[in-house]
């Protein structure tokens, strides 16, 4: 079926690279003390997610993930970092409550991971549809303007309100001084 040499191997390696970028980027984003490295981890995680979306038959969303998350969200967070001084405070010593919080957070995360992964693996998923259907950009555009037109309009209003609200909040803080 595949005429290109080593096509399955290349496919597997690409998938593993994107999955490792997602997992590693997420770990980097959550565990480093410098916030700027955390943002770099977030953008790495988003690049990995974009690759995974490509594997999930959606090149459009892969493009949007890069454009919105890496291009807009991460850059906006970097602007926020430049305006505030957000480095994690250096712990002056290992206190009892800090250890307790770390243990609690680790336990919560482990339980959540175990439960969700187990649910995903052992869940009784319905049989996949026999006809794969058309998930192209054209189909997305048509359904955005017909079936989901109300949601489309509402989310544009939400974005407008968010822009105006962000401007108002930032100005109000300045006026207050």
């Amino acid at each position, binding site marked *: 079926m595949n005429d290109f040499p080593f096509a*399955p191997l290349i496919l*597997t390696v690409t*998938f*593993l690279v994107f*999955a490792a970028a*997602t*997992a590693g980027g*997420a770990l980097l*984003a*959550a*565990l480093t003390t410098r*916030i700027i490295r*955390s943002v770099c981890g*977030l953008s790495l*995680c988003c690049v990995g*997610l974009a690759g*995974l979306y490509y594997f*999930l038959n*959606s090149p*459009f*969303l892969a493009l*949007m993930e890069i454009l*919105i*998350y890496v291009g807009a969200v991460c850059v906006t*967070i970097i*602007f*926020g970092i430049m*305006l*505030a001084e*957000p480095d994690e405070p250096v712990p002056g010593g290992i206190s009892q409550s800090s250890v307790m919080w770390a243990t609690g*957070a680790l336990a*919560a*995360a*482990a339980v*959540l*991971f175990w439960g*969700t*992964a187990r649910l*995903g*693996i052992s869940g009784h998923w*319905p049989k*996949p*549809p026999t006809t794969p*259907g*058309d998930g192209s950009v054209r189909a*997305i555009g048509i*359904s955005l303007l017909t079936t989901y037109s109300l*949601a489309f309009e509402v*989310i544009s209003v*939400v*974005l407008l309100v*968010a*822009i105006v609200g*962000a*401007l108002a*909040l*930032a100005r109000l*803080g*300045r006026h*207050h001084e």
Partner: protein
Amino acid sequence: MSLSHLHAEPYAYLVLAAFVLAVGIYGLIRRRTLIGMLIAGELIFGAASLNLMTVNRFFAPDPVVGQVFVLFIMGLAAAEVSIALSIIIAVYRNYRSIRSAEISEMKG
């Protein structure tokens, strides 16, 4: 489930999404600055999107629905980040710090 067909298995994506969700929850609890918590929240958004896309690809009859849904999640996440960052900057102006432990008093 061999390694060469891992990219065609829904379980690989579901477990990865669960992992990213768990890391995001851990970061949300452990971070002590507002921007760190915001980044952890973005991780949780990403995990939810990946989960939706997986179910959309492997189990849904219409492959458009999940993509539209994830597109809306991205729009909401962008709106959330802009609002959260302007709140963070306003907080920084008032307190000269964005550590969540220090923001404990209200007006009034």
